Structure formats: structure tokens, C-alpha cells
């Protein structure tokens, strides 16, 4: 066991695991479940056991010195990967049961997890990029898993990822031309010597690269369809963890690389505003969605906007808020995608206009989604509140009042879609067609409820995250930060004791429950949805009492003009025009031998005539 506690061993197990699962599926499909479980749990356990100060591993590959190591910052993210990775894998065991091509699915799934471990443990830019690209193509394979309708989504995802990755690559090789060494340590040393212009270019390229993965507007175009198309267990991982790799990278760039960019620097401000706009527009788009997963996808984009705002502002409190929100988002968005995925698994539908009244059929999924949306909304007592509180406070103390308004608007508007999500699926009129629906198997609801429990725990005791975050921030170069297990402060001396908040809420809730139970105990009568004869009217069987259809019609109508201009369309027309141009250029190759011969002669003549200019010698 001791020998296995090092990074190469973990990565080797994780990557070999993905191939082993593929082989197992081919050879012994009956053992697949066991092997998948084992090969997710073992690396996750090893990552958990890995000490924060485990020794760095140095080696040389292809003429470059590479190194892997851990630090508090990477440990934080590695635990997120391990946790959500294990839970979504367990969830997938039941979700993907009896689906086709499971070997392929788990190959890509485990490779994605392994690549993410690789990213956080990389201590040099080459390994970082190497694993980054493996993550890209393995997740691409999962986006196109359902094949038929998803090609467009898949290719869009890949092209955006490629553009992002190549921005990263440009920044990396550009940096390398100054440092001659790819390790992060050397990079940190050299960066102060660069000129401001060079530094800005590098920062922008890095942020572009990481921004694509975290779906920062206007690079978010791939995200809704990609999240929608991937199988739900993977969407949980995709939105929950994979998008955090962008956040991880941004954190590194903004604080470790660009220590020179003091708070208030123009790049920071622009990034913060991009984050703010992402949060606002993402929320508005989410309100219009009639597809549960797309709604969550836009919500995910919006939430990442908050995180990026926090990172960009760059004060200790805002960064703490951002990382806290990043962890929270990992938890609650995976949980929501799992919850919605369960509904899809049982009903075969994600259409909010079609689903209705599942609360009694799928109570555990309901609880999951309920806890999820409370967390998203940032309402006490769950964890989301803590993050948003910190974020607002940090914005106010750093004088970003206008951004506060933007974020607050977005946060309020979020209620619209959150309510729509839970109402459309679980509340409302019960329909005959869903009568046979049952709750999902325990393999699926256990991971969901574990995550739901996490949101409660972090709501009451946010300190269990503050500790590791504070350490991680010290690694990023912030001073020691004071924090307490369950008390939030603000600069005006007010403090919020989460325990007392919880106690009061729980007390009110319990008292209310007791009161209602006591008062109505004798007169309680269970009714079905259509049993409303006391209202003076007997609805017929086919009468629609559900108001989930066209939920926000007036709002949509009001906002329609604004959303007419879609950035998606802009990209599409750009791509189309580029392709037309390429098509024109293609006709250079006429297919006519005489033309080609002419080219040869013309080329020769040009070389001879312009030889002075081309080769520096005159004929």
C-alpha cells in the first residue's frame, strides 16, 4: 500500500484501469461492474491517502524535464475529482445498465477521471497540456456516445476545446521560449522578468484556454448541447468537475503566474465583467429552456460565471468565495444532473412540458432536486448560501457595486428557472402515464443523497471546506486567512453563526410541522390531484390542471428581442463563411494537368525574377 502512495502509481492505475475495463468488457462482461467499481475506488482511495506534501516526482520525457507533485491547491481539486468521480461512477452502474457499448463508455469515463487527476498533479506545463488534451478527447467521446443526433454538439465541443487548447499551447511554447524550462516553479520565477505586454498576452491566452472549458461567455456555445447530449452520469462529472479544471487553471494563472496583476488590473476587471455577464445571461437563457438538462446546463454556465467573478476580483475573500462556490457547484450540479438523470432513466423524458407530478413516484429524487435548487438559489441553511454571502461581501468591500447588482439580479432570476425545474417535474397534476413510475434503484439514489447530505453539512459547517481552501490559498500566495467552523463575519462587525441560523430554521420548521399535524390530525384526508370537488367543480379526466406548459410565456415574450442576437449564430456564420472561402481556395486545384504545369512554370519564373527579394541574391 505504501509503495502505491505516489503519483505515478496512481496515474498508472487510473489509466491502465480504463483500458482494463475495456478489455474486461470484451472478455468477461460479467465482471465489468466489479472491475469498474474497483478501478474507480482504488485510485480515489489512494488520492485520498496521498499526503499534501508528497515528494515531487521528476523525470524526463522526450527531451523535457517533467515533474508531478501535490500541493494544498491541487489536493483540494483532486479530492473533488475523486469524490464526484466515485459517486458518478456508482450512479452510472445502474444508469447505464443494459446500454450498448459499455466497454467504450467506461474506457472514456475512467480515462477522463484519470486525465483530470493528471491535470491537478502536473507540476509542469507540458504534462498539464498532455492530460488536458486526453481529457478533451475522452470527454468528446462521451458527448457523442448516443451517436445519432449528437454529432453537431460533439464537433462543436471539440472545435471550441481545440481552439482553447491551442491558445494554451501557444502560451506554453511562448513562455518556454523565455524560460527554457517547462516546470511551474521555473515559470513562476521567470514571469516577473517579462514585460507587461508579453505578460498580458500570455495571461489572455491562458485565460482563453481555461475559459473555454469553464464555458465563460462568449466561449460557452458548446456547453448546453454538449451537457445535454452526454449520458447523465457523465454530465454530472462534466459539469460538476470537468468544468472546474478551467477554474483550477484560472486560479493558477491569475495568482501564481500573474502575481503582477494587482487587484483592479484591467484584465481582472474585464474578466470579472465577463463572469458577471455570463452569470446574468446564463440565468436568463436557463429560464427559457424546456429541457431539464439544458436548463441545468445554462444554470451551470451561470454558476461558473459567479466563480469566475470571484477569482477575477482577487481579494482574499472573493477568492475564498470562488473556490468555495466551485466546490459547492461540483457537489450540487452533479447532484441535480443525477436527479434529473434519474427522472430521465425512469420516464425516458427530459421535457419539462411533458413531465409532471412525480413527487410521490420518485420521492428521493425529489428530495435531491429540492436540496439542489435550494443550494443553487443560495438560501440558508444549505451550502450555497455561504458561498454567495462571501461573494457579495467581497464585491461590496472591493467596491464593485455594479457587479453586485448584476449578480444579485441573476441570483434572483435564478429562482424562476429553479422553480420551473422542480414544479414541472415533481409537482403539479399527476398523470396516468406516469403511474407506473418507480423510484430508481438504491445504486442511483445513494450517491444522490450523499451529495444532498454534503450540501447540508457544508451549510452548517462551512469550515470543513474553509480549512483546505485557506491552505490552498496560501499556496496561491495569499496570507494566512482566519476562518471559523460555522461563523461568517462581515467587515461591519456583524456575524452570522450558521449553527444558530440552522437551529432557528429547524425550530421554526419543526414547530410548524407539529402545529399543522396537531391541528389537522383528525381532519386529514388524502386526496388525489383531481379530487378538488370542494372547489365547486369536477374536472374531467382529460382536463389539464398543470401549468407547467409555457411557464414563463410573458417573460419570454418581453425578453425575446434581447435574445434575438445570438452569439451562436455569429459563430455559425463565421464557420460557414470560412468554409465557403476554403471551398473557393480549393479550386486552385483545378484537376487540369495543363494548369498544374502552368503553375510549375509560373513558380519557376517568380523564383527567378524575384530571386533578389526572396533569396537576397540578384540574378
Amino acid at each position, binding site marked *: 500500500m505504501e509503495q502505491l502512495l505516489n503519483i505515478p502509481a496512481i496515474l498508472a492505475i487510473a489509466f491502465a484501469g480504463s483500458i482494463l475495463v475495456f478489455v474486461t468488457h470484451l472478455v468477461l462482461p460479467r465482471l465489468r461492474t466489479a472491475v469498474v467499481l474497483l478501478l474507480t475506488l482504488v485510485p480515489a482511495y489512494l488520492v485520498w491517502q496521498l499526503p499534501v506534501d508528497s515528494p515531487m516526482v521528476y523525470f524526463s520525457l*522526450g*527531451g523535457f524535464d517533467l515533474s508531478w507533485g501535490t500541493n494544498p491547491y491541487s489536493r483540494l481539486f483532486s479530492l473533488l475529482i475523486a469524490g464526484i468521480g466515485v459517486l458518478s461512477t456508482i450512479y452510472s452502474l445502474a444508469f447505464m445498465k443494459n446500454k450498448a457499448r459499455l466497454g467504450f463508455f467506461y474506457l472514456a469515463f475512467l480515462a477522463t477521471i484519470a486525465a483530470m487527476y493528471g491535470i491537478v498533479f502536473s507540476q509542469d506545463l507540458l504534462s498539464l497540456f498532455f492530460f488536458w488534451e486526453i481529457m478533451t478527447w475522452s470527454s468528446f467521446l462521451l458527448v457523442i456516445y448516443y451517436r445519432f443526433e449528437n454529432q453537431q454538439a460533439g464537433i462543436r465541443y471539440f472545435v471550441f476545446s481545440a481552439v482553447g487548447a491551442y491558445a494554451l499551447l501557444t502560451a506554453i511554447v*511562448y513562455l518556454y*521560449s523565455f524560460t527554457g524550462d517547462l516546470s511551474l516553479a521555473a515559470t513562476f520565477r521567470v514571469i516577473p522578468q517579462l514585460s507587461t505586454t508579453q505578460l498580458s498576452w500570455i495571461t489572455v491566452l491562458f485565460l482563453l484556454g481555461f475559459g473555454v472549458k469553464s464555458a465563460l461567455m462568449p466561449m460557452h456555445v458548446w456547453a448546453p448541447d454538449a451537457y445535454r447530449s452526454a449520458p447523465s452520469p457523465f454530465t454530472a462529472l462534466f459539469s460538476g468537475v470537468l468544468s472546474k479544471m478551467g477554474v483550477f487553471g484560472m486560479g493558477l494563472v491569475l495568482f501564481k503566474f500573474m502575481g503582477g496583476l494587482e487587484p483592479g488590473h484591467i484584465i481582472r476587471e474585464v474578466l470579472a465583467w465577463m463572469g458577471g455577464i455570463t452569470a446574468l445571461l446564463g440565468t436568463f437563457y436557463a429560464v427559457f429552456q424546456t429541457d431539464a438538462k439544458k436548463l441545468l446546463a445554462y444554470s451551470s454556465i451561470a454558476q461558473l460565471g459567479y466563480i469566475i467573478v470571484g477569482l477575477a476580483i482577487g481579494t482574499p475573500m472573493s477568492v475564498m468565495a470562488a473556490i468555495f462556490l466551485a466546490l459547492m457547484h461540483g457537489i450540487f450540479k452533479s447532484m441535480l444532473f443525477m436527479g434529473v438523470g434519474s427522472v430521465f432513466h425512469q420516464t425516458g423524458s427530459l421535457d419539462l412540458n411533458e413531465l409532471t407530478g412525480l413527487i410521490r413516484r420518485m420521492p428521493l429524487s425529489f428530495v435531491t432536486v429540492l436540496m439542489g435548487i435550494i443550494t443553487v438559489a443560495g438560501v440558508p441553511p444549505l451550502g450555497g448560501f455561504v458561498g454567495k454571502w462571501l461573494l457579495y461581501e467581497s464585491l461590496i468591500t472591493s467596491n464593485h457595486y455594479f457587479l453586485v447588482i448584476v449578480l444579485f439580479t441573476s441570483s434572483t432570476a435564478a429562482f424562476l428557472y429553479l422553480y420551473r425545474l422542480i414544479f414541472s417535474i415533481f409537482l403539479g397534476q399527476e398523470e396516468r402515464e406516469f403511474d407506473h413510475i418507480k423510484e430508481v434503484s438504491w445504486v442511483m439514489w445513494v450517491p444522490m443523497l450523499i451529495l444532498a447530505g454534503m450540501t447540508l453539512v457544508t451549510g452548517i459547517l462551512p469550515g470543513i471546506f474553509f480549512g483546505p481552501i485557506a491552505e490552498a490559498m496560501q499556496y496561491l500566495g495569499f496570507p494566512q486567512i482566519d476562518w471559523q467552523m460555522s461563523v461568517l463575519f462581515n467587515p461591519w462587525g456583524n456575524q452570522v453563526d450558521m449553527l444558530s441560523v440552522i437551529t432557528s430554521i429547524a425550530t421554526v420548521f419543526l414547530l410548524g410541522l407539529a402545529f399543522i399535524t396537531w391541528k389537522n390530525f383528525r381532519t386529514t384526508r388524502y386526496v388525489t390531484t383531481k379530487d378538488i370537488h370542494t372547489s365547486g367543480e369536477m374536472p374531467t379526466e382529460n382536463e389539464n390542471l398543470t401549468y407547467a406548459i409555457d411557464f414563463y410565456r410573458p417573460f419570454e415574450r418581453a425578453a425575446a428581442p434581447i435574445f434575438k442576437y445570438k452569439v451562436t449564430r455569429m459563430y455559425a456564420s463565421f464557420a460557414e463563411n470560412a468554409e465557403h472561402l476554403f471551398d473557393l481556395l480549393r479550386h486552385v486545384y483545378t484537376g487540369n*494537368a495543363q494548369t498544374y504545369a502552368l503553375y510549375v512554370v509560373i513558380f*519557376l519564373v517568380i523564383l527567378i525574377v524575384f530571386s533578389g527579394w526572396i533569396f537576397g541574391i540578384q540574378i
Partner: protein
Amino acid sequence: MNLNFSPVHFIAVPLFAAFLLPLLGRISQKLVTLVPGIVLLYLSAVALTLFPQAYNEPIVEIIAGWRPPFGITLVFGPLAAFLVTMITLIGFVVWIYSYRFIIRAPLEKYYMLFMLLIAGSTGIILTGDIFNLFVFLEITAIAAYSLTAFLRDHNGAEAAFKYLLIGSFASAFVLLAIIILYANVGTLNMADIAVRMGDVPAKIKLTIMILFIVGLGIEAELFPLNGWAPDAYSQAPSPIGAVFAGIVVKAAVYALMRVLFTLFDLPTSSHFLVVMGTITLLIAEMSAMRQQQIKRMLAFSSIGQMGLVLVAFGLGTREGIAAALFLMFSHAIIKTLLFFSAGYLVFFSGFKNISDLEGVGREKPWTGFFFSLGALAIIGLPPFSGFWGKFYLLISAANASHIFLIVLILFSAVIEAVYYLRVVGRLYFKKLHDIEIRRTPFTGLLAMGILAIVTITIGVYPDFIYELVLPAADELLDKAAYLQYAMMGQ
């Protein structure tokens, strides 16, 4: 160490086999298929045996007892060893693939021409004599013309005609350059020419160089001289498409580089290569985007990759040339894999068009898998060898502070990703229309499997190749050392 092995075998054995094959055809068709395999296996063995020796000290073989500068020499240094080994190994894999590939016309013609192609390509790389280089160039070209028209249909004949027409320009220009060169220096030994080059007037030197650039540029697929390539690649039988991309072009690029680096002072012309390489790359990738036929698309992609190689050579630094050699190796492996799998995809669907490949990947999972793997590899994703080639190139471009070049290269990589993934998508996403189900022969899968394993192995551990390309790059740059051992002989 077996002392009987000598670089002469690389040329003599396949040449001899080529002339023997028609006779063997009279005895047994089985022999005709087996003998080329044995020859290539033998050559691979020779190459691998001589390999360490060449890296220690270049082997210089004198033909017919005339010492240089009068006789013809074969120079087997690190660069030649690297390329020749690559060619023989790829040739052997091509043979494995061809073994069961359906070939309608007489087998002995196919294998005879194939052997000539191998002999010619290795000859180009090994020879130390400029006129000899021309001869081998012609052998290769003539074999290539014939193979382009091998299927004897209208399109094949047309493609071969185009190739022949443009190829004769190449021969004429190269020959003209050699004549002018000979008139001025009075020798044909390349090392000797390089020594006496200083006496040649600058203008004449330049004329010779331009003639070489155009002549050899045609074979090396330099834009705008590469019009013949897409047709030839797509009309030749699939294994031959792979040979063109993996072997013939590589030899031609080597010839161009040997001439430019050893006979002329490259630095004056280096920017020229970078610019022309970039243009070749961009035009080719853009043209590939809207191709209807899969093999034409692969041909354009191949031209694009050669553009990258030219850029890397053009940088003229040690790491740039190392990157170019790495790219050549990686491209040879991956493009061969792609041609192999595309060959069977076309064969199974019965059509050459990309739109007719819908769903073939679901029916033929392994062939589809190999094509997809090749596509990911050539785009330059880790952990495949294509990634390292591009990475080395970008690093050397950054070190030469060509930032704009990096952007252009990466832009072309995005285009590449789009058109390759579109094909991969078609293989799997669309519904299958009725096609006859035929089995991929085991030998075909074996050949593809070998290449796939190689590209992944090199992708995970590039040092295998990287340590070999560095000395080879040194050889190309270190003109003085080359002159010394090529002139002295041993």
C-alpha cells in the same frame, strides 16, 4: 556483428527481386506474394543491424572500387539510417497489408513496381552522388506513375498522366540543374561539389538552387507544384497511397534537404522554406475541408503535413530539424494507418465518397476504430505520436520567435480536426445503408494494429524516436563532418 551486411543491399536486393518477380510468376503466384515480404524483412533486419553502427560512425560504401570523388558512394550516416530503417519497416507493414488486399491485375507487376519504389526511395537517401540521386529519383517516379495507373480505369490513367506530365518537369529541372552544376564544378560527388561550391559564381549557384527547388519541390509536394498529388494518391491502390505518403514523399523531401543543406548555404533560403511550407500547409488543409472523396482528403492532409515538415526544416535549427524528422516519422506511421483503414472502408462500402461511408464504422468496428485512432493521432492529440511532432515544431518555432507561425500552424490544426472528425462522425453516427458484409482479412488488421501500437508507444514515450532524430539532425547541419567522411570513404 555480421560483416556481410552492407548498405548496398538496400538497393541491390529489392532491385534484383523486382527483376526476379516476373520469372517467379511463371512458377507460382504464391512465391510472388511471399518474396517481397522476405526481401523487406531481410532489409529491415539489415537496417536494424547496421543502425547502431551508423550512429557510431557513418558507413561509407564505395561502389565498383572507384574512390570518391570519382566513384559512386553510398553514405549511411545517422540521417540515412533513420530514414532507411523507417522506409523498410513501413514497407514491410505495407507488404503485410497488401498480402490479402484484393488486387485484380497480375500480382507480379504490382510487387515488381513496389520493389522498385523501395529500391528507388532507399537509393535516393543513400547515394552520395548527385547524378545517381537523379537516377533513383527517376526509378521511383516511373514506378510511381505505373502504380498510379495500376487499376487501369479512366481516372487512374488520367491521374497517372498528370503525374507523368508534372513529374517530367521535375526530371527536366533536376537534370538541368545537375548539368549546370557539373559544367561549373566538374564533379558529381555531392561532398566534392559542396567543397567546390565556393568557386561557383553566386548567380549560377542561385540558378542551380532554384532549379533544384522547383524540380525536387514537385516531388516533395511543395505548393503550388503539388497538383499531381491528390489525384495520384486517390487513384492508386490504397496500399500504394500509403507508400506515397509514407515513403516516396519522405525520400523526395530528404533529397531536397540534402541538396539545400549540403550543397547550398541554407540560412539565406530558410525563410523561403518557412513561408512556402506554411502556404503549402494552409492551402492543403483548406482544400481538404470540402473534399468529397476520403482518399483525396487524406492526400490533401498529407500535403499539409509535408508543409509542416518543410516549415520545420526551414527553421534550420537543430531542434527544428529534429522536429521535422520526428514529424516525418510520425506522419509516415499515422498516414499509412489512415490509408490502410480508409482502403478497407472504401472497399466495404464500395464507394470512394465520404458521404457513402455512413455507418460503416458500426459494421466494421475494428477498421473504424483504427481510422478514428489515426484521425485523433494526426490531429495531434496526446497520447499519440502526432502530438510530439507538432509540439517539437511549435517549441522550435517559439524559440525562433515566430509567434505568428505558431498561430497559423494551430489554426490549420483546428481545420484538420474539423474535417477528420466529420468523417469519424459519419462512420458512426449515421444509419447504415445496405452494404455487403465482408470480413477484413487478418493481415489487414495486423498491419493496422502494428501501426496503432507504434503510434501510441511513441506517443507515451517519445524518447525512442527523439534520441534518434537528434544525431540525424546534427548530421544534416554539420556539413564539415559530412564532407570529411563522405570524401574519405571509411
